[in-house]
């Protein structure tokens, strides 16, 4: 291959396909390592519904067969791989005959709707705050820096629980959970939108504050490093206005932050798990959590597959994008030392 960039791309692609294969295999194996049999649980639930015990035995073997769990593990594995290649995520055990595709499809908009604004606004505000406090220094910096340090080091689920307790349970300003009130039906009415926003604020805040803190610290350090560099001193001596200097600094300090952004998008689904559980938010995280508790293999696999694909794609895009953003890296990629 003549084009060095195409060769680089191909090389990376092969690596990512390998990584995907390993991850997909883990997605198959790990749920099956959870002790206990999902079919036994389903049959047991039917017993609580009053189904007589002598029927249960028959139902057990029937469901084992229908779910394909009576086959040896390697056969199940190849069936699983074949289904993935056909983009078939299978049928949930617990919500049988619900399709995994539909269940995830319904949950995904909630997760994306919760995470994307939180990640984006956290990233933008955090970077602005970081750059500004690095430039400004003094009291503003020490207050902003301390606060950022505090928020970025609180695990986001702790913050979520504290918010939930104080603002929802104790003072009742916000609802305790859910995506919207149960009496309403999702429609494009003013009432529904305000209701959904009301439910949105707490989960959003619990994530965005942590994100702002983390981004601000990173950006502040990068900016301080840039601020002491020669080109800034030179620009200052030339008498260039502050805003313009900040813009230069911002642009240069931005590079590592872009990686951070891409990775946060990639890990979005997995990161949502605890926040969604705390606020009973109807997203992929809640779905995955219940699926794990009930050993619902197809549903676990479906959720983890989405996470895998998201993380790998985000990483891949970052590697490609880097080449375009930073000429130094492009040089390495193309083998020009």
């Amino acid at each position: 291959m003549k084009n060095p960039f195409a060769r680089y791309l191909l090389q990376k692609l092969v690596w990512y396909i390998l990584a995907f294969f390993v991850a997909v295999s883990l997605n198959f194996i790990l749920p099956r390592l959870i002790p206990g049999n999902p079919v036994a649980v389903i049959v047991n639930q039917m017993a609580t519904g009053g189904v007589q015990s002598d029927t249960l035995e028959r139902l057990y073997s029937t469901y084992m067969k229908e779910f394909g769990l009576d086959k040896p593990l390697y056969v199940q594995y190849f069936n699983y791989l074949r289904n993935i290649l056909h983009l078939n995520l299978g049928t949930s055990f617990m919500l049988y005959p619900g399709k995994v595709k539909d269940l995830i499809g319904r949950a995904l908009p909630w997760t994306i709707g919760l995470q994307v604004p939180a990640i984006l606004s956290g990233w933008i505000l955090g970077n602005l705050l970081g750059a500004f406090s690095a430039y400004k220094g003094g009291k503003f910096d020490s207050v902003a820096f301390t606060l950022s340090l505090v928020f970025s080091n609180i695990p986001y689920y702790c913050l979520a629980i504290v918010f939930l307790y104080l603002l929802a349970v104790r003072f009742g300003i916000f609802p305790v959970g859910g995506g919207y009130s149960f009496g309403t039906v999702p429609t494009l009415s003013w009432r529904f939108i305000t209701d959904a926003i009301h439910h949105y604020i707490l989960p959003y805040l619990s994530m965005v504050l942590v994100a702002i803190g983390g981004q601000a610290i990173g950006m502040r350090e990068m900016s301080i490093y840039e601020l002491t560099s020669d080109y800034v001193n030179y620009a200052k001596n030339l008498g260039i206005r502050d805003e313009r200097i900040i813009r230069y600094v911002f642009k240069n300090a931005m590079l590592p932050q872009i990686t951070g952004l891409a990775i946060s998008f990639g890990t979005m689904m997995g990161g949502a798990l605890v926040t969604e559980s705390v606020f009973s938010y109807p997203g992929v995280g809640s779905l995955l959590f219940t699926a794990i508790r009930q050993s619902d293999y197809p549903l676990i696999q479906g959720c983890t597959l989405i996470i895998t694909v998201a993380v790998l794609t985000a990483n891949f895009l970052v590697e490609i994008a880097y080449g375009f953003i930073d000429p130094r890296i492009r040089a390495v990629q193309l083998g020009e030392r």
Partner: protein
Amino acid sequence: MSKVKKFIVSLISLLLVTILVGSVSFAQAPLQLPRKETLYIAGMQWGPPTSFNPMAPAPAWPTNRGQHYLIYETLFVYNLLTGKLDPLIGESFNWSVYTLTVKLRKGAKWQDGTPLTAKDVVYTLELGKKYSLYFSSFWNFITDVKAKDDLTVVMTLNKDNPNKKRVEVFLGQIFIVPQHIWSKIDTSQKALLEYTNTEPVGSGPYKLLAYSPEQIVLQRDDNYWGIPYYGKPAPKYVVHPIFKSNDAGNLAFERGEVDFSQQFCPEIWKMWEVKKLPVGTWYKKEPYHIPASIPSLYINIHKKPLNNPLVRRALAYAINYPKIAETAMSRYSPAAKSSLIIPVGVPEKKYFSQEDVDKYGWKYDPQKAIEILEKQLKAKKGPDGIYVLPDGTRLGPFTAECPYGWTDWMTSLEVVAESARAVGIDIRTQYPDAPVWTDHRNTGNFDLLMNTPAGGYTPAHPWLRFFEVMEIKGVPPIGQVAYWNFNRYSNKKASSLLAGAAKITDEKKLYAIYRELDRIFMKDIPIIPLEYRPWHFYEYNETYWTGFPNEDNPLASPLHTAQGIKIFYIIKPKE
């Protein structure tokens, strides 16, 4: 140039708004239900609804077993107050020696207008013979079902296994489905299980109006065939919001947003005694609900030293039953007695003998437990406060387990462990996830394990409970999967008494047999009853709907299934 820029910006924002609108309005058309005509129910549905197929393993409310018979109906409905089966699609049933004749109601029809006949009944029952379905064991007891005419079904009892009680369970449990619709679906087991049936056609008084992961909405069918017999149910709409947690549902119930709930709601009496809310349960005083099942401690009777009935007896005396009723069951249970018969509330209480319990049974008495340990077993207390048998076997540590998150059971086991340790028996609690607990239970791989024998309530109780605790026939050995008698208790006398009782309808003879079975149970102690639990929690908030039945107004069973559907006809909107 700036105009072009503005145009592009507005174009992009328009695009974004369209995407947003598209993703929000994915569910349904606007739906505003008048509160005064809508009954809100909680506690029967937790996950998102994926099917309304009564043949599927876990269909959504109200098409699952043991839920309100609002879309699909059964032949008869079990009345918890009288212990009898009341008419629904069926008008009456009659036993001769080996045949059962069921007469259907005249004029019964499906929601699409097609008449419901004996052929639909025969078709439905035979589905259970053709495939493995929730009622397939019906065919263990019945050999043949025939439609004599449009309104008469004749069933022939299996002469090798004559068990009228268990057949009667099925009369109140099998949802009859329309042959003209299901015969198109019934091509294979898989096709039948995978059918989502999102537009169910039943014979009941309600039709499915809408559903989403957040709620299920039913609308009254004003052409319901049963109106001449049963009248018209009061609510025009019935909604089951799907809560993410018990707390969310209980909060909505307390606020009057939910009218009728089946959720476990701790200390509910405070809602009317302290908060003065229009909330009620069946009884105004303890135990508030009608006890109908016995969550118990299963003991591994094959493992040393628990294989010694005296050790089990000492443990039975050690457990603080009043404390379990008070803390774990939130006073919704009287203190458990040493009997497999429930002594209060349900029709089976007539078989309970306090005399036998006093003579052969046990109660919370730690002194007596110590006496058994020291005098009868000659055990000596070790330096750690735990007894050791003369052969050197220490009484513990035994593991007591129940699923994680079943908080009432977890509290019960904590009381068991605490009171056993106070006497000198070492018990430690363990709370695995439900799949692990199920596995341990079914394979008999446990020391002590909490479980309810024959949960729910049927016309075959208390026979079924004795059967599930004491019958070894059909139970595979330890290590294989069993579905009842998890600790593999075996007693020939008990087996023959059970077989005898299955054939008898004479009350006096039954009483004698149950007493004898109960005495064997109290002697051998395969399980220890810990508490009582209602079949359903029956809780109503009369902010919008009044006239719910209760102890003073016993017009219908306090159930969210079976004869409890009569509640829908009795309640009235509040003026």
